[in-house]
């Protein structure tokens, strides 16, 4: 960590986005994580994605649990809303907040301990309910705040810094999210922002539960030979299935859309993801195939990254529940207390 604040001075050519902010305006306080922590790179990727998408910081709510990863919302989007929940309880607090005010962008930030151990149930239910959110799991395979014990996502056979071999089977959060009904599932790597930033942008664009598992090496406790979540190991075993080249505002009418390696996925709001396929065997709109693909390649020891599955017709919790279109805090007395006649009509409908 660093004692001094990052100087306010910035590059003379630092550009402003459509809403008048520079990238620096999306930063938070100086990180207190260890130097070189993958989580700081993820924070930088979130900053970059929000700046590029012209998001107004006051329209974002950041929610997190407990852990190194859950500290990070303090280090980005310093002008957004934030909530640090009880350990592993971020998904339920986020769900409640989302139900109350559906207009904000919900950014859930969690770690492997927070999501795969103490909060595994919360994680599963958040996914199956289709809460409209971006759920970023900063996955380093160890408990960094308590000096590097294996977490539930550590691979079987991987070694701790002190040489202990992990004998437990890992929880694969990507497969779990697919099974539990997440409608946008991706995996990124903190050491590859070129891939990660577009994934975050696509997840923000997605309506429904968007889950990104980001492998984020713990430099202090899990970046040695024998680790399967070190910079070197992830780089050597990274099997990127695709790259999001760009996100278009609307479907393009071009004669040449049938290029084999490009897949276009239209989202609910009409925007289109342009995916460049790296592995032609992988179809990101076929959920069963995606699950098979992930399992097959993981069995070979590969770390599958990229956009693994996106449901173009996804629906979210508000649609399931037929909730009112406006946020609750914008409803007036006449909507909330419609009067005796409305009550009578409602009662009559139940008879």
């Amino acid at each position: 960590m660093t004692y001094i604040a990052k100087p306010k001075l910035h590059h003379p050519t630092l550009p402003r986005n459509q809403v008048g902010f520079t990238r620096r305006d999306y930063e938070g306080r100086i990180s207190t994580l260890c130097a070189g922590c993958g989580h700081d790179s993820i924070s930088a990727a979130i900053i970059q994605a929000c700046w590029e998408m012209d998001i107004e910081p006051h329209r974002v709510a950041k929610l997190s649990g407990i852990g190194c990863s859950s500290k990070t919302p303090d280090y980005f989007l310093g002008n957004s809303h934030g909530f640090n929940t009880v350990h592993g309880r971020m998904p339920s607090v986020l769900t409640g907040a989302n139900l109350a005010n559906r207009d904000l962008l919900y950014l859930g930030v969690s770690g492997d301990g927070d999501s795969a151990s103490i909060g595994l149930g919360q994680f599963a239910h958040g996914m199956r309910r289709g809460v409209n959110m971006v759920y970023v799991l900063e996955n380093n395979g160890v408990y960094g705040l308590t000096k590097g014990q294996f977490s539930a996502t550590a691979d079987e056979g991987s070694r701790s810094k002190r040489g202990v071999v992990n004998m437990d089977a890992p929880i694969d959060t990507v497969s779990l999210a697919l099974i539990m009904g997440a409608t946008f599932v991706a995996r990124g790597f903190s050491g590859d922002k070129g891939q990660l930033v577009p994934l975050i942008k696509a997840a923000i664009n997605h309506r429904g539960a968007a889950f990104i598992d980001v492998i984020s090496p713990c430099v202090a406790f899990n970046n040695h030979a024998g680790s399967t979540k070190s910079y070197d190991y992830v780089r050597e075993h990274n099997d990127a299935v695709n790259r999001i080249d760009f996100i278009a505002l609307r479907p393009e009418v071009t004669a040449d859309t049938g290029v084999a390696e490009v897949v276009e996925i239209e989202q609910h709001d009409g925007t289109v993801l342009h995916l460049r396929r790296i592995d032609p065997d992988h179809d990101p709109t076929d959920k069963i195939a995606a699950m098979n693909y992930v399992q097959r390649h993981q069995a070979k020891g590969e770390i599958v990254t990229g956009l693994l599955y996106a449901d173009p017709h996804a629906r979210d919790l508000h649609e399931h529940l037929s909730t009112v279109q406006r946020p609750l805090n914008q409803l007036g007395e006449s909507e909330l207390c419609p009067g005796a006649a409305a009550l009578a009509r409602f009662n009559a409908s139940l008879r």
Partner: protein
Amino acid sequence: MQPTDIRSPDYFHKVVDCQWACPAHTPVPEYIRLIAAGRYADAYLVNWQSNVFPGVLGRTCDRPCEPACRRGRVEEKNAEKPEPVAICRLKRVAADYKGEITPRLPRPPATRTGKKVACVGAGPSSLTVARDLAVLGHDVVVFDGDPKAGGFMRTQVPRFRLPEEVIDEEVGYILDIGVTFRGGQRIDSLKSLLAEEFDAVFVGTGAPRGRDLDIPGRSESASHIHIGIDWLSSVSFGHVTKVGRRVIVLGGGNTAMDCCRSAKRLGGEDVKVIVRSGFDEMKASPWEKEDAQHEGIPILNFLVPRRFEHENGRLVGMTFEKVHAVYDDQKRRTLVPTGEPDAFFECDEVLVAVGQENSFPWIERDVGLKFDRWGLPVLDPKTHQSSIPNIFFGGDAAFGPKNIITAVAHGHEAAISIDRFCRGEALTPRPAPHTRLTSQKMGIHEWSYDNDVSGENRNAVPWAAAEKALRSIKVEVELGFDPATAFKEAQRCLNCDVQTVFARDLCIECDACVDICPMDCITFTGNGNEADLRTRLKAPADNFTQDLYVSPALKTERVMVKDEDVCLHCGLCAERCPTGAWDMQKFLLEMTHAGAERPATSPERSAA
């Protein structure tokens, strides 16, 4: 691109923009840190070693360091008015508060070389030669037509900018090293000087002739028209004590600025500067123009002198042709008449400050010394040796009029040559500068320099009250920084000499440095040629005068590219680096002066 060779002394030297721009390569950040630490005497000695006249230069330097200062570029789009560190005035702070330093200066060595060196003229270049050679045990004799040493600094720089005590003190430090000064002894003949059996002669006679303006009316009104530099020295010696009520100063250089401000103090009520070119193209330093305007002196531009107007042998005014600038394809400027009627300005006296020329009336043309077609001696540009092997030139006498700091730099080079010549050694190759690269790391995030970048704007130097300052030519206008302001100003320095040094083998490519860098200087990307790389960085690298620092290929085949342009040297990259692949290392470059390969000739000092 090829990996950057940081062992080449020029690479990191160029990053220290101020030091690179300084003709004498003064280690600026080093002495600014000493000022911040309150070690004024140490700061003074760093300067004294490099530029010989810190007190003089702290008031009068042309300060090429300041336009080069990184702080000015860094404040672009960050501060209302981007400005460099007030380097020059900090130098004066070191001189003002240094206290007694005489015991720390070198003394003449007991063992003498037996070699005799003559310096003609006692200006900054000659005195530099004298200092550098006297400490080596050579016998140096300095000749000057004036009774006191100092040359241009004493005779032409007005006292309200440079008090005489400052010159006396700093000239004294040199003469006290056992230099013989023969004041009032003008050398009229090179031949007879050579006959005196000197082993080497150094010519530092400056550019003593002011250009005249040969236009109608010049001779008729001669008694009211003066050549600027001659008039300034007459003022300096007290031969001129007053001036007419209405004064026109012709010319746009620093001499013109000194003339107009002096005239204002000698009774000129209506003093104006009239210049041929546009205001922005004037040769005078921007701050000197500001100072003149501050004292209520208007500067009128685009007016070409046509005639001195006179009645009955008395000057009554001047007529000027109005022009404007026209640029051709090559951006060459011509001044074209606007066709408007000529402008007439009334005046009682005119000071002509339209340039200086070299002149060597005392050098016999049959002595064998070669001159070029501009009347300048033919010299080796590095060794300053003339066509007669034991005669060397420096300062304005060598390559035409420049400034004090350039003269000092010439003096150092000539002294190296003269010392080697006297010892019968080859004059080339020149000695390499002395460089040191030292890690500043003291703890996980502690450095031996203050890396917390100051957000202060430039501090203005306080001035004496205008009515007091304008009443006498001897009252110094600028008062210098007080220690508290000096500290604040010193903290604006970015410590550009504390270099970001990258070790490829330690890097794990975690991106921490890229994310933390406030100025977006660092990029990890595929290699390419320079033009291509410059467009692919995290922030565009449009300043082609600033280098890219490129690492050898990393594990991912990418390279680390750092644009040096607006780096704050805040060290955050090194603080956030988990493996120590980035380190902050102080690059101290000191020019090698004459005889530096031999025992201690420099003042004692511990590190900043």
